[in-house]
């Protein structure tokens, strides 16, 4: 886990600080005066050996100091925390919608294996994995704000205006964000449940005369939940990354728009900080899912 996080930071560092040659020149542009470049190099510590720079950078980052934004002249960590107020609820809302829709649909399809209900559910999920989330977002805007006028086409007033209006402006983006992962999870649920339904103990339960409802929900689903939860956990990280795209569609001031804006302004510390933060988050979630997998399934043990 620690080694993995170290690799994450090394990848970010190498791309931003080492590959381009001189980051100071990138931030200021080639027209910048040599004096200004030299001053920026000095203040960022770019004139010291690269390994020293890395150790210093990662040492500070470990304690939450991600440097200062060039554009806003405030600490990057503070910027990230403030933008999380949009990205995190959006991610969690999409995850909640995804789970609430996908698991029942998957169960429905599995219990009607190779019948019309199954085919209909799988066709629906096939469309879910084919439609790009950002296009789904555009279509939702087209339908619900341009045609029907029920929602705004984007923007976010913050949590100060009351949770209701904030959640309302996150609803369409959350639906568009969760669509793809919903389809994946529905398919996972279906195949995990089908797998378990073939097991001997399920046959035994049925032979004993246990009601079909109880066979599915009390006997089969419990074991099928292990792969389902694993996939859902990994999807949480994917949703967080995907929110970067949906924030752009709906003009939401989250981490993604922060990073995209920083690219335009050549604000390297901000891009570096946001990417390091999100990538570490995804890696941590994945590691937690691995551990959870072992806890849920006693047959799996790690040396």
């Amino acid at each position: 886990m620690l080694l993995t996080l170290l690799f994450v930071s090394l990848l970010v560092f190498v791309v931003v600080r080492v590959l381009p040659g001189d980051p100071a020149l990138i931030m200021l542009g080639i027209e910048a005066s040599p004096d200004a470049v030299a001053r920026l190099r000095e203040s960022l510590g770019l004139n010291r050996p690269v390994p020293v720079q890395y150790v210093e950078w990662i040492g500070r980052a470990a304690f939450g100091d991600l440097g200062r934004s060039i554009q806003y002249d405030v600490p990057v960590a503070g910027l990230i925390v403030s933008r999380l107020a949009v990205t995190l609820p959006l991610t969690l809302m999409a995850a909640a919608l995804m789970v609430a829709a996908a698991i029942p649909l998957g169960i429905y399809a599995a219990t009607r294996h190779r019948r019309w209900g199954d085919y209909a559910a799988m066709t629906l999920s096939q469309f879910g994995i084919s439609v790009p989330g950002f296009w789904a977002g555009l279509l939702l805007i087209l339908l619900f704000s341009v045609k029907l006028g029920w929602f705004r086409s984007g923007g976010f007033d913050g949590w100060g205006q009351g949770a209701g209006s904030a959640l309302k402006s996150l609803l369409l983006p959350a639906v568009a964000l969760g669509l793809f992962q919903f389809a994946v999870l529905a398919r996972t649920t279906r195949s995990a449940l089908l797998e378990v339904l073939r097991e001997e103990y399920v046959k035994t339960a049925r032979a004993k005369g246990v009601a079909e409802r109880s066979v599915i929900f009390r006997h089969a689903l419990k074991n099928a939940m292990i792969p389902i939860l694993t996939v859902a956990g990994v999807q949480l990280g994917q949703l967080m990354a995907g929110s970067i795209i949906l924030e752009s569609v709906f003009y939401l001031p989250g981490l993604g728009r922060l990073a995209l804006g920083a690219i335009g302004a050549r604000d390297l510390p901000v891009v570096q900080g946001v990417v390091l933060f999100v990538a570490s988050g995804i890696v941590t979630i994945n590691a937690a899912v691995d551990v959870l997998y072992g806890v849920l399934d006693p047959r799996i043990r790690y040396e």
Partner: protein
Amino acid sequence: MNRAIRRALRHVTFAVGFAITALLLLTAALSLSYTPRDPLEMSMEARLQGPSEAHLLGTDQFGRDLLSRIMVGAVTAILVGVIAVGIGVGLGVFLGMLSGYFGGWLDEVFMRLMDAVQGFPAILSALLIASVFKPGLAITMIAIGVSFLPIFARLTRAAFLELRDREFVMAARALGAGDAAVIGRHILPNTLAPLIVQASISFPVAILAEAALSYLGLGTQPPNPSWGLMLREAQAFLGMSPWFAVFPGTAIALTVLGLNLLGDGLRDLLDPKMMS
């Protein structure tokens, strides 16, 4: 061989996927020599039109023909898909091979590195690379390709772990085959089926990612046509000209649908055990 083809075409999922994919390839090939209009030709009088006889799918904000631009966009999509999957397969198989065959600390380090790379979905790598290099097609391909690395490395590693102590491999080694020969001639050919299936799954994912990155402005740059970039431009005119946003998106969804069906069908046909 004939029987295999007949069996494949009777498989509905595969046949539908194959038909859509063939249509995509034909469209892309055709666009290299013929499009109804010049995809870059602007016309101020014909801005933001809906479908008509002159422009079957309407026009964009500069009066450019959408059908022609969508046709040329197919080339971009295929190109990015092929190269990104190629990067993922090439590097992934190489790392997975070394990891699975040699094991030990090398395996441990490579697998932790793959865990780390998994923290970088295409969008994050693209953001990172675009902050220091000029956004464009190359960034898109690299970012998407890198995001495929872990899955191909893990698949190859798992296959190598399973095969490296089998009798036929030991026999080859006993007969004096070196590491390179054992890997290249005896183990690698036996790992192909899962890799082909995974590549077919990754291809549509790459096309979706390319569209998303161009939409964000990190991929293909104007005036070159890319489906994602067209949607980025369409968003500003959503109220005035909804068709502009509908057609490029449909092209992406249809392409990805076809490739997904093809991949599902391929998986069923190559490995009947995985049928569900």
